[in-house]
């Protein structure tokens, strides 16, 4: 896709929810600061991640991978592995005799696998497998591929033309421009670096498979296993109680998942296969690079009159590199062409707000360059070019509020005039993201005669606090304390729900949860009403009691009410319904930096984020999402870069030593202002805050130094080179 999603501020409002189930205007728990229920398990080490699962007789597996970016597997000799102490079983993933599968397309591509009694022995065995390769020509340099100077590796060419997009009259737009800017902007490939690696534990019982998977979607994994192993869907159970970060890379089952299941079948024993850090960098996905050559025109009164962009990026071996551009701002006359460039590296996967951090950076740096041309303040210039304000397009209000709160009026024009080598600057950038809910996402509620309440749904908690939300929404609907509700998630036995991707989990799960809870409450009211001599509809549930509306004394405790349930618990289920969730958020962020112009070192000193996400369910964990997104984007701004050796195509920094990520001393004070929009229903906030920080930081560096850095990350090398070019 050449052009990304455009603004949806003209989207029709969602159809009204069934009024019986609509979000309460007087919530008891929702919107408050609720500590996550599984916090104690996580801080004490009791929480069991896939990495922690141990099964009786469990074996450990390792994958043998290609060290070359492109090669034909000539032979695989497992005999050495078989002689290793503790060896149990092995498989060849790429049959050298099969021309359809015997070619590896990137460093880390799977070739074979082994399982042994201990992890050490599995590694020994993997290293004892002999693989003979015929190294094939490869392409690792995007510029060379674009210029047609690389070996043709991919069957339909190394470069795929995307769809172009054009609107208005570009020539007229440039004619109307008082100034133009023409520049190239770039962002690098970065990797997800989930702290828990990708991996699974697979255990067979006859022809039935139980798989513990570190995943963002238990139900998606079930489907992946069933189709990948060609076994009935009904024979697969996937469990993920806790998972150590996904950021988009754990929405699909990698080759390691199926390999683990096959080894377990062969060995007749449970097998654990967790990838190591190097494998994580090489094969479990990445954020594609993005680059744009943009020529844009601006009128003397600060309206962008024309925008002409040639864009490209690489998502690795045969995968696209999409991003929205122009991003958010309204430009009547525009044209964009796009090329996906294929190189011999691991392929991209969605990564936290796919496309948006890239589009934001490319666009926002251009915005400040244009603003300077017309000598206009960046906030004012942005406001001039925004789409009209709407509930899902609140940038103007947020920019004004943020500028005031951040002390934007103290911002100096481009280039800090202060003496000395430490320069201070401020930058601003904006974001949008869809989010929103969808079905199927079926919640099951049970109320038993002892008063216990279980809410069960086949979703998962990837660190967002979803488990806590399940309990909060249930307790809120039933007028109970949080502690009276048990939330059960992370297992395909709990039914169908979607993947935790696209900031959709809360919006997809909570409507069904609320409806299932209210339906269960309706049944409970029916059992209670006769003894109170009223119609069920006259009853309400609040503060752990069920009573006649308006007459709190005429009622009973929750426990007493539930005693009337009998031996068969109340059981209800409900799917997501439209009207309780909606799509598209808006946000703005301000950043302040100090730049040492003699070393090129950038330190971020302050960040302010204003972000909406519809109805705020848990203020505490929603804020955490914002902190996390900002830190992710700060890493994108300053540190992250997948570095390939330009000659061999092998990654030189597949670790956490040279693949840099911020530590505590790199984190500035961050202020979060969450905007509650209860009337819009639930939307989701996992992704939008990770969009604009990088651009805001880069623009703060520009404001500090007077040098425009058009390429991420903002390394000392890049910053010093930009300063030298300016001088």
């Amino acid at each position, binding site marked *: 896709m050449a052009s990304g999603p455009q603004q949806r501020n003209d989207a029709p409002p969602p159809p009204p929810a069934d009024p019986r189930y609509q979000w309460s205007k007087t919530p008891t728990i929702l919107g408050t600061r609720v500590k996550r229920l599984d916090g104690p398990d996580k801080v004490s080490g009791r929480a069991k991640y896939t990495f922690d699962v141990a099964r009786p007789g469990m074996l450990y597996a390792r994958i043998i991978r290609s*060290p070359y970016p492109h090669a034909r597997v000539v032979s695989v000799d497992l005999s050495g592995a078989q002689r290793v102490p503790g060896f149990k079983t092995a498989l060849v993933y790429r049959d050298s005799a099969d021309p359809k599968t015997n070619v590896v397309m990137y*460093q880390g591509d799977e070739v074979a696998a082994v399982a042994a009694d201990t992890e*050490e022995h599995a*590694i*020994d065995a993997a*290293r004892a497998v002999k693989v003979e390769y015929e190294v094939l020509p490869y392409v690792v340099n995007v510029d060379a591929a674009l210029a047609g100077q690389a070996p043709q590796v991919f069957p339909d060419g190394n470069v795929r033309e995307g769809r172009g997009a054009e609107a208005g009259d570009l020539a007229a737009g440039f004619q109307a421009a008082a100034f133009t800017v023409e520049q190239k902007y770039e962002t690098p490939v970065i990797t997800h670096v989930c702290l828990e690696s990708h991996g699974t534990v697979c255990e067979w019982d006859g022809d039935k498979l139980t798989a513990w998977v570190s995943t963002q979607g238990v139900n998606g994994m079930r489907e992946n296993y069933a189709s990948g192993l060609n076994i009935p869907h009904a024979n697969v159970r996937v469990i993920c109680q806790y998972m150590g970060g996904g950021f988009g890379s754990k929405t699909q089952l990698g080759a390691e998942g199926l390999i683990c299941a096959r080894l377990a079948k062969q060995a007749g024993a449970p097998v654990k296969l967790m990838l190591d850090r190097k494998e994580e960098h090489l094969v479990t996905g990445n954020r594609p690079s993005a680059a744009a050559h943009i020529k844009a025109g601006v009128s003397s009164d600060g309206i962008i009159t024309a925008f002409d962009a040639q864009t490209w990026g690489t998502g690795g071996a045969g995968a696209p590199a999409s991003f929205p551009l122009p991003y958010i701002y309204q430009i009547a006359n525009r044209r964009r062409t796009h090329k996906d460039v294929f190189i011999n590296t691991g392929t991209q996967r969605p990564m936290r707000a796919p496309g948006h951090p890239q589009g934001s950076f490319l666009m926002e740096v251009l915005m400040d360059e244009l603003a300077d041309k017309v000598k206009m303040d960046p906030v004012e210039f942005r406001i001039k070019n925004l789409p009209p304000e709407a509930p899902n397009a609140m940038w103007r209000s947020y920019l004004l509020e943020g500028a005031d709160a951040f002390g934007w009026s103290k911002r100096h024009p481009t280039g800090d005039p202060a003496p*000395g*080598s*430490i320069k201070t600057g401020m930058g601003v950038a904006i974001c949008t993201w869809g989010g929103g809910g969808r079905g199927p996402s079926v919640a099951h509620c049970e109320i038993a005669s002892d008063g216990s309440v279980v809410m069960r749904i086949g979703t998962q908690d990837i660190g967002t606090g979803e488990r806590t939300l399940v309990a909060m929404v249930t307790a809120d609907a039933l007028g109970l304390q949080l502690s009276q509700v048990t939330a059960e998630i992370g297992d395909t036995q709990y039914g169908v729900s979607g993947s935790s991707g696209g900031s959709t989990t809360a919006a997809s799960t909570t409507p069904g949860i609320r409806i299932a809870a209210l339906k269960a409450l309706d049944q409970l009211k029916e059992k209670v009403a006769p003894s109170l001599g009223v119609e069920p509809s006259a009853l309400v549930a609040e503060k752990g009691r069920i009573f006649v509306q308006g007459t709190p004394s005429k009622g009973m405790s929750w426990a007493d009410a539930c005693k009337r349930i009998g031996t068969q618990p109340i059981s209800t289920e409900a799917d997501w319904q439209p009207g309780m969730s909606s799509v598209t958020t808006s946000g703005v962020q301000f950043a302040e930096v100090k730049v*040492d112009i*003699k*070393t*090129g*070192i950038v*330190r971020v000193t302050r960040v302010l984020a204003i972000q909406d996400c519809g109805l705020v369910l848990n203020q505490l964990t929603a804020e955490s999402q914002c902190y996390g997104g900002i830190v992710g984007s700060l890493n994108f701004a*300053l*540190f992250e870069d997948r*570095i*390939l*050796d*330009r*000659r*061999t195509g*092998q990654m*030189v*920094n*597949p*670790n956490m*030593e*040279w693949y*840099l990520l*911020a*530590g*505590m*001393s*790199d984190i500035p004070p961050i202020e979060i202002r969450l905007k509650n929009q209860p009337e819009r229903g639930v939307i989701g906030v996992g992704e939008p805050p990770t969009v604009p920080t990088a651009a805001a930081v880069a623009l703060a560096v520009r404001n500090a130094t007077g040098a425009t850095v058009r390429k991420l990350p903002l*390394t*000392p*090398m890049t910053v*010093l*080179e930009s300063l030298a070019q300016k001088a």
Partner: protein
Amino acid sequence: MKPFAYVNPADEKEAVAALSPEYEKVLPIGGGQDLLARMKDYITQPDRLVNVKNLDATVKPENGGLRIGAAMKMVDVAEHAGIGRLYPAIAAAAIEVGTPQIRNQGTVGGNINQRPRCWYFRNEEFVCYKKGGNRCFSPSGENQFHAILGGGPTYIVHPSSLAVPFVAYDATFRLLGPRGERMVKAADYFTMPTRENVERENVLEPNELLTHVILPAPGNVKTGHYEVRYKAAHDWPIAFATVILGMDGSTVGAARVVMGAVAPVPWRSKEAEQALIGKPITAESAAAAAEAALAKAEPLSQNAYKVQVAKTAVERAILQAAGLPIA
């Protein structure tokens, strides 16, 4: 990791007896912070490890200076009052090493003898000079963190933070081998790569152990130590410098200027020292000395910026030594 045997010697003699005359066959393990990572990556595959973390880790006065046991932990170096008072650059270097966890484990001996952090050396795919191959990948590869001084044939930068102040303070290393001890000046310990001797970074024989660092009395000097790091948290320096100045009234009488992370050895710049001697310390003289320190720099394709960073480190270390503002 390849399986290996393990020896826990009672004393330094037993430790030395457990070593081997063959390189990489038997290795001492102190904190293991470098060694174990190298072994996990199959860069180093010893048959036997000899535990040296229980050998001498004390600090003792000696001839007005100090004698430091090589098993001393980095955290203890950083927090040792005597070291901080007499050799502030050593304490300053130690506190910036790695992370709290690394400083709690890593030893003085391990810091000095750790192997290069060059990413070609550290990745098994690249069979470089250091691993018995016949090339250095960095000149035509990804060299943003590589050497700007020294001219090859390998372009690693020496990874030790302590080595730089040790050279600046004119430390002597005590090496114990099968034939007894020998004393080697820190400046002579580290070796520049040559085609003939490209796999090692120092003169330590495979059956020798570095047991002590002996620091001479520092005399009446001013000290500066300045490190430039990309990340504020855990990261390797891009460049750093230790500067020691003996003042002759208001002018510099004697100077030591040593840079780290710029060359395959701790890089002493006599040019910078000459530029300082006889001059008062001012912003101008510091800048001139920094220029002199890097006059012979020969950056590779991607690391010209390091010349600027290293200059800044030298300049600021000089200013810091003189108590002048550094920004």
